[in-house]
């Protein structure tokens, strides 16, 4: 555990990829195979099934440490991390042992899962009495299935390829598909380079994704983007960006988060398998029904299932809408202008596509005004707005640095999102943040008035938000909360706050929700502005918010 805890600490502290890879290389070159296999599984996102819940751990920790549970709760408010709090308040081990990672996972967590509570408790207490603070911290993350670490699969691959002395592409290939975290598997990963071929193996990596800049205001378009005819306009889909790769007779589907999604969409892969070797398409994964995308939540449901069942297949058909082609018959197309890439893409999809693989249509408009008109209907179509791509632009890397006003086409891609809903709300509850912001009140609940006008009736919450303020503003709000607390929420560190501060809250969507007291749920709420010019009675009413809902539902219904 010491070695793995050290690795975790190093990964956690470093921000540069070179440092992270170096830490991984140090770990993998020294760890025994049975531990390394588990470490790799954890680093690439596998979870150990949760063996006990928070309530149990809290109670046992209170008993073991002698501290009342409320004091552990107060500590949680200051620390912001459950696993860390428990690791810090528990006494040092009386029988210290450097348990191996494999022993902690298989010998303790996995094996206790099938036993009853008294056995679990004995196991946990025994483990506490052996591990030091850092070891306990990792143990808690694992046993509660909350272990996460900021390492992409690609970084792990890079480190492993260095340790094994094989090409990165080959290591990547070895890691594809299903595998079990066993010593045998790890040893086979570490075998010398495979013989045959050109010795390089097949490169399964996606190209770096090209990203769009946000268009902040509409006036910018008229002044800077030139004639609409130089631009390709498409819907901005609300799905998962991905690259579909066909090489050496096999298909790989990557998300923008460099996650390999190949096995999650077997139906899509059947279609993609028809693509010629050396094809890479950039596009969007969407849950699709009756000619329009379904809400993102439906897609997410499907993504979270590793092996989707037949039922889910039928429920949520997933399609790939391609909007760019990066490689044709092994040739890198990215430097070619978009108009050429588009022509190639349309040809390929016409020949090899199908119901599940289509191009993302180009919106043909004669003027910016006509495009703006289309954009205003985005919500009815379940899209986020419009993408603008200059027809001469190359496919760049990441978000281009240049946003030069005099050369907006150099920026290549722009996203022109539909305007968010805006509601003036009153801050009523503040909670401490987590991680970086653990000791500050940074997470807020916002409410509107139930009466016919602002200031009338009571305040009912409609959104929680924690982003959108500057650090300076957060400090001011934090100070306000500390001075104007009127009560505390039960459990956790929530504070009821005098309803005096007004914020303009922006959100992307709104839905009826019987689970919420207000009857509505908002999507992606964030603080747009602190309305220091407004008093709380000038905030909006629930009637106004429900009016937005009515609009949304009506328009969706008509055009569905």
């Amino acid at each position, binding site marked *: 555990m010491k070695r793995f805890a050290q690795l975790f600490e190093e990964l*956690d*502290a*470093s*921000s*540069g990829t070179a440092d992270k890879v170096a830490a991984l290389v140090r770990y993998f070159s020294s760890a025994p195979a049975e531990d390394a296999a588990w470490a790799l599984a954890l680093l690439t996102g596998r979870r150990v099934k949760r063996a006990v819940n928070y309530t149990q751990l809290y109670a046992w920790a209170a008993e073991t*440490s002698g*501290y*009342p549970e*409320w*004091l*552990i709760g*107060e*500590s949680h408010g*200051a*620390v*912001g*991390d459950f696993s*860390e*709090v428990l690791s*810090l*308040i528990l006494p040092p081990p009386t029988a210290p042992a450097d348990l191996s990672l494999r022993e902690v996972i298989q010998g303790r967590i996995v094996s206790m899962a099938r036993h009853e509570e008294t056995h679990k408790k004995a196991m946990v207490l025994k483990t506490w009495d052996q591990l030091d603070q850092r070891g306990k911290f990792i143990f808690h993350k694992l046993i509660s299935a909350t272990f996460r670490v900021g390492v992409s699969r690609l970084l792990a691959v890079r480190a492993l390829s260095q340790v094994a002395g094989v090409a990165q592409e080959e290591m990547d290939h070895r890691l594809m598909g299903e595998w079990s975290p066993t010593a045998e598997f790890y040893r086979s990963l570490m075998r010398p380079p495979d013989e045959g071929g050109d010795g390089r193996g097949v490169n399964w990596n996606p190209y770096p994704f090209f990203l769009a800049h946000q268009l902040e205001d509409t006036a910018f378009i008229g002044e800077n983007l030139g004639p609409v005819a130089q631009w390709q306009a498409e819907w901005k889909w609300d799905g998962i960006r991905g690259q579909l790769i066909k090489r050496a007779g096999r298909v790989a589907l990557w998300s923008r988060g460099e996650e390999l999604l190949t096995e999650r969409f077997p139906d899509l892969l059947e279609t993609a398998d028809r693509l010629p070797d050396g094809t890479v398409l950039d596009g969007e994964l969407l849950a699709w029904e009756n000619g329009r995308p379904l809400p993102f939540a439906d897609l997410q449901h499907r993504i979270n299932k590793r092996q989707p069942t037949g039922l889910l297949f039928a429920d949520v058909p997933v399609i790939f809408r391609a909007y760019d082609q990066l490689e044709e018959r092994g040739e890198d197309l990215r430097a070619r202008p978009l108009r050429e890439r588009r022509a190639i893409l349309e040809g390929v999809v016409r020949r090899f596509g199908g119901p599940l693989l289509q191009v993302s249509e180009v919106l043909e408009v004669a003027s910016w005004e006509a495009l703006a008109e289309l954009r205003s209907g985005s919500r009815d179509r379940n899209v986020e707005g419009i993408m603008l791509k200059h027809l001469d632009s190359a496919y760049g890397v990441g978000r281009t640095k240049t946003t030069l006003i005099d050369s907006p086409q150099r920026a290549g891609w722009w996203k022109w999102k539909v305007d968010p809903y805006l509601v003036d709300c009153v801050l009523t509850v503040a909670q401490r943040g*987590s*991680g*970086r*912001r*653990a*000791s*500050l009140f940074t997470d807020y609940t916002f409410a509107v008035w139930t009466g016919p006008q602002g200031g009338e009736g009571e305040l009912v919450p409609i959104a929680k938000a924690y982003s959108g303020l500057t*650090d*300076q503003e*957060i*400090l001011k709000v*934090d*100070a306000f909360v*500390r*001075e104007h607390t009127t009560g505390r929420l039960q459990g956790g560190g929530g504070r009821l706050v005098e309803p005096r501060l007004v914020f303009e809250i922006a959100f992307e969507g709104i839905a009826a929700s019987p689970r919420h007291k207000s009857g509505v749920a908002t999507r992606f709420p964030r603080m747009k502005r602190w309305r220091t010019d407004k008093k709380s009675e000038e905030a909006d009413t629930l009637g106004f918010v429900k009016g937005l809902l009515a609009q949304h539902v009506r328009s969706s219904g008509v055009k569905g």
Partner: protein
Amino acid sequence: MVALVRTTDRGLFCEAGGFYIDPWKAVSRAVITHGHTDHARWGHKRYLSSPTGAVVLNARFGRQVEGLIDALPYGERQRFGDVVVSLHPAGHVLGSAQVRVEHASSGETWVVSGDYKTQDDGVSEPFEPVRCHTFITESTFGLPVYAWRPQAEVMAKMNAWWRANADAGRTSMVACYALGKAQRIMAGLDPTIGPILMHGALARCTAAYREAGVKLPGVAVATQESVRAASGRAMVLAPPSAVRSPWAFNLVKRNAVKDLATAMASGWMQIRGARRRRSLDTGFALSDHADWHGIMSSIEATGAESIGVTHGAIGPVVRFLNEKGKHAFAVPTRWEGEAGAEEGGGTGEADGDDHQEEQGLLLGEGGDA
């Protein structure tokens, strides 16, 4: 029971003695527990402090306090009005004192801890618990998650970190408060690894320690020349605001990220979130305040029937003590709820203490008043 000390809008006030303890507004008689600028300000008519505390005050405020300080050696008694005052080592920084106040006729005795720590740091006068009826304790780190490792262990970690950096040709830089923490670290660093250098803002306090007779290794002010001449083996101590500043990056060659390893030494570094949001390479949990166990054991050692809790985790400590059957009460301070409101008679140099640090963390570079 008559309250010997109470909170007023100027600070903690002893009416029977006609003096204030660490007042934040100008008063005629100020008893100063220690030289951090959230406790000591200029502008009072008369000061009372320990003799080494006076050395620190003179170093920090110079002419602004010249001729105004009465030094009272630890343990000596002095009468003020109806009370007798004595000062006792608090172990926080050089010259830091607990203030003992005894009512001359009734014998009722209160002790105000000021900031204190129970570990002997080797450079300040070690903490001594003082028997009393009422003990007013600070509670900056008054939660059980704060449990310090022995200083020798933390310094061994810091030296190992420094050595690894030096071997890799990276200059090391540790953020630390100018008064107390910096000198404590100087005394614990291993000078065989490389030269120890400091930011200019640390010089006056360091000189005060030497003047008071504390033995410290040679420490020169860091310049581009001295840092580069050490080719990556130097350890530079600097106030928190300077560590990610152009000053720091200009000290090293070529690539500031590769050539400079940064860390912070503070009790807050006990918590992972606090380490992360500092965007430094590492953190060392080294505090000049008592940890949870230090607070609880000190309370026991005073034998006090009644405990006032101030400065920090007031609510949890009061509740915990009351549940243990003690009589505990909150002593509000100006700092509660006034995030980063530090102004007053500071010398303008980067200074501060863990109190402000909590709020300063989010601001990153500009965190210190």
